[in-house]
C-alpha cells in the first residue's frame, strides 16, 4: 500500500471521527439499556440497531455522496493518486471508519448476552451472525454509494439495505439451527451459524472488491 493511500485512509478516519465516536457511544449506551427488563431490552435493541445502521448510512452519504456533491472530491483527486488508489483508500477508509462503532456495538451486545442474567446465552450465535450481517450490509451500502451517480440511486440503495435488515431478522431468525437454540442456556455453534457467517463473508468480499473492478475503471470520475 502506497504512502498516499495510507494517508487518505487516515484522512477518512479523521474526517468521520465524530460520526464514529457518537455512533459507538450510542450503541454501547443502547446495549446497556437492554439489561434493564423486557421493555428496556426492546427499546435498547431498536436504539442499538439504529445507531449501527445510521453510522453506516452517514458514512456512505457524507464520505462518498457529499464529497462528490460538495466538490471536495476535486481536492482529493488533485493529489498524486490514481482513481484506483482513490477507490481503494475510500473503500477501506470508510470500512475502517464503520468498524470502530461496529466493533463497540458488537462487543457491547456480546457482553450484554454473557453478563446479563435476563438474556439467555443461547442468543449469542444469533447476535454474532446479526453483527456479521450489519458489517456485510454496510459493505453493500458502501459499494452502492461508490457506484451510484445520483441521490435517487443512493436513496434506493439505503432503502433496500434497510429493508434487508428486517428480512434478515425474520428469515435467518427462523432458521431451525438458530431459532431452536436462542432461548437455551448455552450457545450452540452449529453448521447453520457458520454457513450464515460464510455467506456474510462472501457478500462482504464481493462488495469490497467490486468498486475496485468497476468504479475505479470509470472513464469520467468527476
Amino acid at each position, binding site marked *: 500500500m502506497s504512502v498516499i493511500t495510507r*494517508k487518505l485512509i487516515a484522512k477518512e478516519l479523521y*474526517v468521520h471521527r465524530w460520526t464514529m465516536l457518537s455512533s459507538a457511544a450510542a450503541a454501547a449506551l443502547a446495549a446497556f439499556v437492554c439489561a434493564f427488563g423486557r421493555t428496556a431490552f426492546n427499546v435498547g435493541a431498536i436504539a442499538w440497531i439504529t445507531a449501527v445502521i445510521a453510522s453506516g448510512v452517514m458514512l456512505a452519504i457524507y464520505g462518498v455522496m457529499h464529497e462528490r456533491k*460538495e*466538490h471536495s472530491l476535486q*481536492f482529493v483527486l*488533485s493529489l*498524486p493518486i490514481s482513481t484506483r488508489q482513490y477507490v481503494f483508500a475510500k473503500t477501506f477508509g470508510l470500512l475502517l471508519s464503520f468498524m470502530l462503532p461496529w466493533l463497540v456495538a458488537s462487543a457491547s451486545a456480546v457482553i450484554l448476552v454473557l453478563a446479563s442474567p435476563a438474556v439467555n446465552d443461547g442468543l449469542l450465535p444469533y447476535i454474532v451472525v446479526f453483527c456479521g450481517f450489519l458489517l456485510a450490509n454496510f459493505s453493500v451500502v458502501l459499494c452502492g454509494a461508490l457506484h451510484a451517480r445520483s441521490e435517487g440511486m443512493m436513496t434506493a440503495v439505503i432503502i433496500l439495505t434497510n429493508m434487508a435488515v428486517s428480512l434478515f431478522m425474520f428469515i435467518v431468525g427462523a432458521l431451525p439451527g438458530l431459532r431452536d437454540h436462542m432461548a437455551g442456556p448455552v450457545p450452540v455453534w452449529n453448521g447453520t451459524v457458520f454457513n450464515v457467517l460464510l455467506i456474510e463473508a462472501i457478500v462482504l468480499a464481493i462488495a469490497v472488491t467490486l468498486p475496485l473492478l468497476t468504479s475505479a475503471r470509470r472513464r*469520467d470520475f*468527476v
Partner: protein
Amino acid sequence: MTATKHIEMRGVAKAFRFFALHGLSFDLEPGQVMGLVGPNGAGKSTTIRMAMGLMTPDEGEIRVLGHPMPAAQAAAKRDIGYVSADMRLMPNATLGWHMKLVSSIYPGWDAAYAATLVKRFNLRPAQSTHTLSHGEHTKAALLLALARRPRLLILDEPTTGLDPVARHELLTEFMDVLRDESRSILFSSHNTVDVERISDRIAFLDRGRLVANSDKEDFLERWRRIEVQLPPGAALPELAHIVGHASDGRFHTLTTNHFDERQLAQLGPAVRNVQRMSLEEIFVANVMHHREARDQ
C-alpha cells in the same frame, strides 16, 4: 535538448449527451501562461478535467509533463497544483490540517511560503473549513496548490465569484509563480480582463471547438476596428480578412483579424478611425465570426 511540453493535446474529442468537444489540439510550453477563454458551456472545464486525468477523452492523446493522461495521472499530479472555482476542502477539518496533509504528501512543500500566503490571504490555519467564505475557500485551495511549488498550475476559473481585491491578490500570486521560468499555468476564465493581465498565450474555446490559439500580443496586434465614411455613391472595396462588418448608410465599421497597412491604402481617405481592440472585443468578434462561418 528540447524541454518537455507541460501540456500536449492532440485531436482530443469528448462527447456527452448534449455537448461535444471536437478535435482539440494545443501545447503549453514551460514558462508560459495560457488563458483558456470561452463563454459558459464552451468546454473549458471539460478540457481542464481531461488534462488532470479526471476524465478520459473518447479520441486523441493528452500528455501532461510528459506523462500520458489519464493513465499516468498519479505521476503527473506530483508536479501539478490544481484549483477550480467550485473546489471545496474536506469538511470537519481545519485549514491547518489540510496544510499538514498536503505538506506530508509533497516533498517540495514550502512551509515559509505557505506561512506568507496565510498572512497575505488573511487566512487562519485554525479555522474550520465549513466557516470559510467562497473567497476564503478559493484562497485556501490556492495556498495548498501554490505552496507545493508545482511545475504546472491548472486553474479552472479561479477568480469566479471573488471581489476585485481578492482577484488582484490571486493574480499577483500567479504572476509571482512565473518568476521561475520552468513553471507554467493553464488558466481558464470567461473574464477576459484577468486573462489579458496574466496570460502570454490565449486560446478561445466556443461550443466545444478551439476557435483561435495565439500569443496575446499577436491577437492584440492583428485585430483592429476600422471606421470608414464613404463618399456619396461610392462602394466599399473588397478587403481581405474582414470578419465583421456593420453599416449605417455611408458609415461602415469593419473588424479585421489580420490588420495591414494595405487595407488602409485600399480604403484611402474614407478611413476615419482605426481602433485597437480589447481582448474582450477580440474574443466576442472571434466567437461570433466562427459561429457565423459554421452556420453557413
